[in-house]
């Protein structure tokens, strides 16, 4: 790798970083209406001129497994109940969504087991399953 190549890489890094920053700070990309917490996080990082560093900080601070705030998944698991008018399919998709979140967050405790326990031994779920038309 010659010094000229390294110099070129630095120039390209700066150019692409500027473009990336322009894309991230665009109000359409991270909107206040669809994702207010992400929007607030971005506001705190707007001073960063390097687009790659901005993206890195943003992603890492929004990810609990990296540098982000701890998310109380136990509460979400306990709050996961089937509503009287809800079908098992939609409840199951909600549960799977939470399961994916737990997997992405790389939770080391037994939260996933607790989630499955909650799904299969939840009285409301059992009754809903029993009441299913044959």
């Amino acid at each position: 790798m010659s010094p000229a190549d390294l110099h070129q890489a630095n120039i390209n890094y700066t150019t692409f970083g500027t473009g990336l920053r322009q894309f991230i700070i665009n109000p359409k990309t991270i909107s206040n209406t669809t994702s207010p917490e992400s929007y607030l996080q971005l506001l705190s990082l707007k001073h960063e001129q390097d687009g790659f560093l901005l993206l890195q900080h943003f992603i890492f601070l929004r990810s609990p497994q990296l540098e982000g705030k701890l998310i109380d998944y136990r509460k979400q698991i306990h709050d996961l109940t089937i509503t009287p008018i809800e079908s098992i399919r939609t409840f199951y998709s909600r549960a799977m969504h939470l399961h994916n979140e737990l997997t992405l967050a790389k939770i080391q405790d037994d939260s996933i087991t607790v989630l499955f326990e909650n799904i299969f031994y939840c009285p409301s779920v059992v009754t809903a399953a029993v009441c299913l038309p044959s």
Partner: protein
Amino acid sequence: MTPTTHATSTTNEALLQANETLLHAITLLQDAVKKINDDLTLVKSTIQNVQENTLLLHQKTTDIEEKLESIETNCTEKVDKLSLQTDTIAVELDQLQQKTQSITRELENIPLSMTPSPTLLQSINMNIDTKLRSLPVLVKNEIQAASISQVLPKTKKLSGFHQQESKEFHVSKLLKLLDTHTITGESLQDLEIFYDTIILHLSTVTLQSHLYLLIETSTLPFDFMNTYVLPRRTQLCLLQIYIKQT
């Protein structure tokens, strides 16, 4: 007090006042005279200066006129000389043209009857022999050079951020690809989709797929600058370490 004494006293007072006013007037007049004298001296000095300057100017103008005249005479002399020289050169050129014309006429009239000398023929034959002997070596070298050029690429193709800006590798292309992508929610899955799309588009633009870590494989410490800009060998080492760890 009698009326006569009163009258004398009043006249005396009046006289004193008049005397004072006269004295004041005299002092004023003296000042004015002094000022006039000063102004006169100033005017005289300026007149003298102007006279001197006019003399100097006159001298300078005469000098300049003389110099201009001398320059003009020199120039005319030089122009005359040059014109004379050009005339002589033109005459010489005419003579040369006439001579060349006569020589060409003479050459046209002479018939070609030239035969090569035996020494010249010998040297030519020697040269041809040496060239023929070195021909196999030359052919061998050419074949080797051709094979090397086929094995090695003509230009060093770089990927990642180390390549030169081109139509394919340009920030505008990345922005065009990212144009419609947004974060649609607060969940980690939304974040993952957002980050991974950026990384995938970046990989497409930079023609490099294996170095940009996706969110699922991202670990601490991680630095874009080190990942993208470091020399390729260092990048590969980092990748090997990462693969070993996982």
